[in-house]
């Protein structure tokens, strides 16, 4: 019990260090991520958010719930496209009392060692619980030995990749596969406020994570969707300065250009009042920094990255439920703006969304959401 209490105290202290922009871990993370594709503002914002709600009380509550006894480590195969899961995994494991191997992605190998060192400096019982590693994928000299030594694997990856781990790993595999998120703006929502929240959710990590909205449905007719889209255009233009888009490769620029050409066909016809249905931000790396398109209602349009968002009119949230049920994609979060009756929120959760939250909060999940503390139990 003493151990749990001390652990919770150290977890809270460690989390506070990540929230403090002046702390040593933040300085080190800032320096380590300086050469990454992400802008400094996006990195700072992500680090501000990742453990925003992890205080001592919460840590103590979760730690008591899941006291861990198995000393064998859990392997976490980290994603390369966003940084939140690295820090979240370390603290979830600490909360569960688990030892972990953090396998860094090829293009970001610094965060895991920073976390390991932070835990060392925090002292026991956190010290020594993180083994920060990197190896080239599939290395026959390393991978089989690691797989044999762990009691579980937590992997962020495509469904196909996660399915392929099973036969090679003699332990349970918990996969976080590909999924997508959408937004919904109710009739009661303040359009500017909704657009501001949506712009933040889109701008953080440029929609590369699964919690960023790809399509935003606007309750009402095409005119209302068009007005929201123009408000979103203005907010994304602002976000181009406050949360600049990441640098992109030539291949990614090509993908953005191809997506925009495709959307130029599916966009609604511009209305007679002169508002366009396809808005593009200032160019970066040869392609627009963001794109907002108004399309007819239908299944979600998903481009996956590049701040490309589709806005679609939607008769009602019940219609959204029908669209969602018909869509053959795995849905992650629904971000909403305006009033949504609680029974409808419950229905949405039952219908397949893992999380329902206000627009603007989609990229700011609570501690222990993905992965969960239980994943490390």
């Amino acid at each position, binding site marked *: 019990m003493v151990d749990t209490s001390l652990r919770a105290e150290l977890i809270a202290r460690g989390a506070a260090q990540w929230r403090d922009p002046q702390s040593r871990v933040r300085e080190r993370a800032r320096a380590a991520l300086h050469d990454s594709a992400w802008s400094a503002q996006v990195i700072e914002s992500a680090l501000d958010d990742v453990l925003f709600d992890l205080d001592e009380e919460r840590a103590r509550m979760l730690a008591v719930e899941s006291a861990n006894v198995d000393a064998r480590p859990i392997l976490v195969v980290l994603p390369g496209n966003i940084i939140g899961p690295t820090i979240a995994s370390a603290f979830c494991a600490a909360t569960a009392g688990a030892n972990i191997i953090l396998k860094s992605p090829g293009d970001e190998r610094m965060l895991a060692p920073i976390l390991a060192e932070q835990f060392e400096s925090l002292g026991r019982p956190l010290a020594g619980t993180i083994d920060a590693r990197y190896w080239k994928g599939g290395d026959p000299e390393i991978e089989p030995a690691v797989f044999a030594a762990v009691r579980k694997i937590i992997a962020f990856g495509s469904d196909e*990749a996660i399915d392929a781990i099973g036969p090679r790993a003699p332990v349970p595999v918990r996969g976080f596969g590909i999924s997508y998120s959408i937004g919904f703006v109710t009739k009661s929502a303040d359009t500017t406020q909704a657009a501001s929240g949506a712009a933040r959710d889109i701008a953080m990590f440029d929609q590369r994570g699964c919690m960023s909205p790809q399509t935003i449905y606007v309750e009402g007719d095409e005119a209302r969707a068009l007005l929201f889209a123009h408000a979103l255009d203005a907010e994304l233009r602002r976000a181009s300065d406050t949360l600049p888009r990441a640098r992109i490769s030539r*291949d990614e620029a090509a993908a953005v250009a191809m997506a925009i050409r495709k959307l*130029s*066909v599916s966009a609604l016809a511009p209305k007679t009042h002169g508002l366009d249905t396809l808005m593009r931000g200032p160019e970066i790396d040869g392609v627009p920094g963001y794109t907002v398109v108004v399309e007819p209602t239908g299944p*979600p349009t998903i481009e996956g*990255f590049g701040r490309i968002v589709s806005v679609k009119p939607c008769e009602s949230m019940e219609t959204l439920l029908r669209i969602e049920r018909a869509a053959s994609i795995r849905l992650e979060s629904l971000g909403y703006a305006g009033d949504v009756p609680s029974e409808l929120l419950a229905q949405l959760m039952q219908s397949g969304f893992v999380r329902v939250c206000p627009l603007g909060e989609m990229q700011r999940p609570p501690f222990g959401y993905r992965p969960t503390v239980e994943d490390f139990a």
Partner: protein
Amino acid sequence: MTSATNVNDRRDADARALDEQILRYIASDTPSDAEFKRLALECFAYQYERCEPYRRFCDRQGRTPKDAVTWLDVPAVQTASFATARLACFPRERTAIEFHSSGTTSSGERSSTLELDSPALYEASLVAHFRRRILPDASKMRIIALMPSRADAPNSSLSYMVQHLIDTVGAPRSGFFIEDGRLAFDSLFEALVRREPALIFGTAFAFVHLLDRCRAVGHRFRLPSGSRVIETGGFKGRSREVPRSELYAAFVDFLGVPRQMCASEYGMCELGSQWYDASIEDMLAHRASLGSSHPNALSDRLDLKVGPHWAKSIVVDPVTAQPVERGTEGLIHIFDLSNRGSVCALLTGDLGVEREGGFVLLGRSPGAPPKGCSIDADDLLTRGRG
């Protein structure tokens, strides 16, 4: 056997009139660039007027029929747009045939649809080009099709296409050898030991299964002289992937078909025309063969995709969509007159390099990265796969 051509003609008078001109051009032995240009611009005007999403796209590009001087001035839609908009120049009730690309995937990629108001252009284009590139030496040949039949896959353009080839240039005992989604090995092996030349037309993944079975049971066929292999379609995650060179080497080893008599077909649901490797045509014309004094010329054209004279191709920059210098990698941009009923000018998602007489296909544009938190596990696993 079901006839692929058993389809109603639902064209209106304008469509018929334009098709008549295009059919004459397809049949021409001396096609002129001037006539291609005239037909291309006429098709553009026709499609701009009748296909509303396309007109909107052109307007956004600032290009209307008034501004177009050559086919290169005609705005090309991304082939992916066939999944998100109805690109047809006729009302839905006039749709006679509908082709769908491979189904919706978990990544949210939707299926493309091509609607035709008549099979006339599609079939004329198919047969004329096939005869020229693949079957210039015979009026008919036994076709062994390794894909689902038209009855089993009614919306597959490939099944339609091969059914029509069987109906028009197929010798007796042609047929489909996939039943209930599986290769019918017994009847297929019987077909492969017949003493008459055969043209085996199949998807890459079907060939992989066939060759795996040949290996497993120790069969090495020696198909009669004149036999040929046409492979198409890539793998699409449906079987283990095999490098192209390995697959073609296996055609030689296990089917006994010379490498030069094996070719790849490049086509897609959104396109009326097809492209074929120049290898068979070259071999049959004695322009290139193994042991010739120009081995490089042979290898260059083995992978050269050659299109029909009624479909032009260029390679463009993937970002700007502007033509690149010959030899530079880019996206394949096509203008296909046989697409009169939808959109003739298409920008594919495929990378290629322009060469004399056609292009060399390099594969799919890498496009967007995996969506979701997915990069490293993919890397970890794909490298580890045997």
